[in-house]
């Protein structure tokens, strides 16, 4: 397969994965780490398991709306 096509397919695959994760309330972990590193260099970002747990709790926490009909 030519390289640009392959690169394109990999990029699409990443987006699909990102979409599937966000559908269940887990945003992009790398973006989170990048954000903490740049904006709050004094903090240590959560590890991925911590991040996952935090997001899981937040999805069903108080003040969130349930699912649609």
């Amino acid at each position, binding site marked *: 397969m030519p390289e640009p096509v392959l690169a394109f397919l990999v990029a699409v695959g990443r987006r699909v994965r990102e*979409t599937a994760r*966000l559908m269940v309330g887990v945003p992009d972990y790398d973006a989170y780490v*990048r954000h*903490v590193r740049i904006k709050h260099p004094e903090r240590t970002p959560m590890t991925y398991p911590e991040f996952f747990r935090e997001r899981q*709790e937040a999805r069903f926490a108080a003040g969130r709306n349930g*699912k649609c*009909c």
Partner: protein
Amino acid sequence: MKPSRILSHLPWAALAVLGATALGVVALTRGETINALWMVIASVCVFLIGYRYYGLFLAHKVLQVDPGRMTPAHRFNDGLDYVPTNRYVLYGHHFAAIAGAGPLVGPVLAAQMGYLPGILWILAGVVFAGAVQDFIILFISTRRDGRSIGDLVKAELGPVPGVIALFGTFLIMVIILAVLALIVVKALTNSPWGTFMVGATIPIAILMGVYARYLRPGRIGEMSLIGFVLLMASIWFGKDVSASSFLSPLLTLDGKTLTWLLIGYGFVASVLPVWLLLAPRDYLSTFLKVGTIVGLAIGIAIVAPHLQMPPLTRFVDGTGPVWSGGLFPFLFITIACGSVSGFHALIASGTTPKMLDNERHAAFIGYGGMLMESFVAVMALVAASCIEPGIYFAMNTPLAVLGKTAESAAQAVTQMGFVVTPQQLVETARAVGENTIISRAGGAPTLAVGMAHILSGVLGGKVMMAFWYHFAILFEALFILTAVDAGTRSGRFMLQDLLGTFVPSFKRTEALIPNLVATALCVSAWGYFLYQGVVDPLGGINTLWPLFGVANQMLAAVALILATVVLVKMKRQRYAWVTAVPTVWLLACTLTAGWQKIFSANPKVGFLAQAAKFGDAAAKGQVLGPAKDLAQMHQIVVNNYIDAGMCGLFVLVVLAILAFGIRSVLKGLASPKPTACESEYQPMPDA
């Protein structure tokens, strides 16, 4: 206009011609069946043209989205709740959040009038009302730090309407949970196969939950794959369970038993830690939902089924067996989600505005997301219309009309004018692996038969009919149960908030006693309506679905009133018709429907008339079916009074919001300057 600009409209003109042709075939063909693809083509053309010419008109002329204005995702970026997100990724998130059982069930029920009224309302409703509401609420919330609809009503209309809107939302949630649970009960009654596989989702979800918490933390893909394989295995082995002489009678349950099981399940599931049951089930149901919707679209494109249901049936006069009441107003509340759904206003002011990268994406996500939801409704209408009308009516008519045997049911349906033989009913039941298909109201079984018809045409043929039927039932039951768990949890939080204003200790959501008390109250609220639906003389759906439709459309009216107020306060009143016209239409539908549901003299439509009918009979010592004694007769009377009261409350909520809305509009008009409460303007940071 420059020639190049005119040229750019040419492909759209071609699309318009194609769409008009397809719509013409759908609307005007009489006496012979048409291919479902005409309906699909017509819908896709309407959606694309609606987006290009109306959605973008709203974005550029009415709302004047500003790509240079910073969105909450950038302003409050924390990498968690507020994250600037790729627009296609966010579209997927938004669609998964708004799509549910609503657009699947409503069109199935509406098919009793034929497919034509349903498809016309779906298309017109979504372009001019539903997608407009979702988009504008998303825009309004984005301009206000991603705040929720309750907060927005409070800020723009005042604190009292804010509380009224919150209270209304809680009532609507109760009705939604009850009607969703009723759909599951109706689908699983006397179905050991269905009961087994839906029950099996509980241990499967727990296994997934433990896996993703302790064994391989956060591996969503792995655990979902494991869950999916086990789920398919449970469908496969369900067949053996239904044939087993030991398990089959054990899992053949009546409606009342299933109701109690569901109520107990709802209570337990919503107090357990979310990682154990609720979250893994949510993952499974979300992926299965999106996957099945895609699969169904491919299936319809490959099989290209013919629509067996006539475009119009004689039941447009309001005497239909599935639900009672005339085309106006009841068609417009029966198909709620798919055309316009007030519940979406909660999502459009929930997580989505916090992740919007740029205002110019709002039309694609808000307007476009709703178009996709509407497409799901079109597919449900196709699935319901491609099965034999005789079978459709045998599945959806109350047992009291049909009688218990295939012979009596076939005779009753044939008398309605839809020829069907007892053999056809028995054979269809056998093909899908069920004991009977007679009077399986609620939409889910009918949709499952239609989906099995389509999906088995792609994969597996007749042999796989039963598998696909149960796959479709599982698909619906899974995300309905997720909605029940999650809804009970959010209902509990709302109640704790509400009760907390009187007893402050109730606000502590982590404390055990307030948690259990509020959960019990919430479960009893929807459990009451569910139980009442199961023992209802007209079959439950007949009573609860219109109540749900009225509630949902009234919430939409509230959202559109808010949008109108905001447009006026922004001094864009020359465009206020874009929300004012659909508001007037929704008010006309819901207030008429609300009035008829309470006061109609026809006991099949009016709650008070039904109460009077059973009350009079009880006074004379008579017992009317399905009541078995006088105590049950009195219960039916009480139930109908409560339903009438609930309906009256919805009407009062919407009238109150309307009054406050008009007050705010007048104030906004009188002010020489814009008065909308937007967050302060900040320019978009450089990338």
